[in-house]
């Protein structure tokens, strides 16, 4: 594919991600942190985020599966997830976490389950979007171009 097209495609794609709330300004901050001493910085951070979050989600599921749900623990996990998602700018995930914590406070088990589903969904969604984004980046680089960055 021609480089120009690739780049334009990239721009459109990432713009949509911001537009639709998948990513927020924090992601841009990360992009700006990336430099030649660390050209894969964003990718590395994202990978950390994916791994860490999966673990958290598993823990969450486990905690909610208990006979007696320890809501404090649930809350702690959600809080962690919220922190994580804010690190990469995964805004929608973060927003679900916020709602999730409120539900936790109400010790609403059913509600918590719903939130869990929601947060999982959002997480996998943003994960796949980011993976696509990184793929696009690789294509651009492979074609000899440079990745357009939003200021």
């Amino acid at each position: 594919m021609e480089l120009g097209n690739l780049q334009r495609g990239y721009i459109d794609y990432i713009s949509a991600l911001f537009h639709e709330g998948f990513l927020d300004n924090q992601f841009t901050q990360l992009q700006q942190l990336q430099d030649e001493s660390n050209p894969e910085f964003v990718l590395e951070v994202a990978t950390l985020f994916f791994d860490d979050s999966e673990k958290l989600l598993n823990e969450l599921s486990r905690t909610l599966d208990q006979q007696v749900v320890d809501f404090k623990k649930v809350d702690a996990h959600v809080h962690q997830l919220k922190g994580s998602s804010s690190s990469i700018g995964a805004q929608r995930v973060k927003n679900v976490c916020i709602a999730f914590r409120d539900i936790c406070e109400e010790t609403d088990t059913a509600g918590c389950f719903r939130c869990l589903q929601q947060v999982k969904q959002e997480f996998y969604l943003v994960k796949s979007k980011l993976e696509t984004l990184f793929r696009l980046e690789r294509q651009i680089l492979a074609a000899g171009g440079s990745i357009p960055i939003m200021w």
Partner: protein
Amino acid sequence: MENPLPTSRAEAFPAGLRVLIVDDDPTWLKILEKMLKKCSYEVTTCSLATEALDMLRGKRDRFDIVISDVNMPDMDGFKLLEQVGLEMDLPVIMMSIDGETSRVMKGVQHGACDYLLKPVRMKELRNIWQHVYRKRMHELKEIETHNIHDDANILRNGSEDPDDRQYVAGTEMSSVRKRKDLESKEFVEHEFNDPSTVKKARVVWSVDLHQKFVNAVNQIGFDKVGPKKILDLMNVPGLTRENVASHLQKYRLYLIRLQRQNEGRACTGNLSSDFMNSENRGNSGFNSSTNIQLESELTTYTSTTENFQTQGIVPSVHISETKQIEPVQIIGSKKVPSNDVSCASKVNNAPHLSVLLSFNDKMPNIKKACEPATPKHKPLLGGTPMMQFMQYPKQESYNILSEYSCLTYVDQNLDPSFDQYSSTLPAFISATCTSEKDVKDLFEMKPVLTDYRNGHFTAIPLQVKRGAVNAQDIGAVCKVEGPPSTQDCYLNDKYSQGYFPLTYEFSLKGEAEADSLPEDVHLCSLQKIGCFENLGFSGAEIYQYGDSTPTTDVESNWYDSSELNGEYSYDPVEYPLIDEYLFA
């Protein structure tokens, strides 16, 4: 004995600041590490609080500052904070995604010197050195005012050999060791020629102490003064009548000298500058400016001194080889009476008293060094820098409508494709000032559009029409609209409920300037310029353009609608006023 610090690090402060980050979140740990490195700080990361404590205890003086998350699995962040404060007395900054006032308060109560909200921005991290600096200043001050005790209390580390430490107790100056890791300084002791007498408890006449003394004297009346009376008035615990008596004697001599000379600037007890000097013994003046210098481990001072007369040199201060210098205070007369000149004779001219560059001078350079490296990616518009506000993308695209009729400025003819653009487009505000009765002043702001399809952008200037502004006549609406929700940001007058009026002055910016705004420019301080970085309707920047109009005072309220985001991203550190008034 601690080794002296490498000069390069000391001189480069705040670059090279040694930071310990503690956070159980690996993602944040990585990001913060990167950010801090970009600030030219030396970073150590740690994901467990217990580990962090071990590190801190293991090697004292390995770090300058600690940044810790509040929520950690193995230990509560606040607990860590307390421990560090108690044991190591290092400045600790807390961090959390949770910005609830109660939490922040808890942090402060436990001794945090700052509380950062995640997501943490580079610029917040860049400024953390101030906490280190501030702490040192306080330490110094504390030492100066409370050092009426034994040497052991005053000097924390350093030479254990009391013979090494001699004080000039009677003369109106004292040297104080500031930091634990400083090597000992030798001071010529004024009254006691014999080092062995050092063991006596000694009073060091700090500026504050002397000030109290002088106040007491003045209160009593110089003629009627006597050591007992002064002592009582001063009411300083631990001070003895003898101390006061000898000090009084010096003071009298000093005053006499003053009268006689009547020339030059006498050093009074009010002199609060610290100075260092050792080289001028019988000569006149010292150098003049007091610069507080910060090395990474200690504070050194170059002094401001008054001009001392010929023999008036008093700072008979020994400065050791290591170039670490105690701040010395001049109190009272500088002249050393001839029969006391023994102290002068003991002065050792330290060869290493180089004048360190003033901190202020250094700063700009350091700041530059700390600026983030420009990403190497090609700018979007093939070289045309995007307007700065694009830095804060939001999900919604913006459309500005104003609700007030007059001066309605509606940019209806926005490019229809505009909506498709993401948050990378700047938000803009149309604020129209109107008043029902008097339109005294109004300003409009026009958006800056970037249309990167066409590869150009237009900056539409903001015009300010002058006139006196009566705050209550101003009401402006800024409407930010776009899927999925419409945000209304009101610049409202004080009649609006629930909002406290804030006063802003808008200042002019040339259009050209706007183009070249650096990334982290703070376009406003609350009182000065009316631009808000990242104020929730993110990226909106208000700037003015105009030839003639001066700043306009607008009383307006900004609030960050909670609908905009679950949380808003602004820097509470930077906009404390806004913080109060914005509602989450």
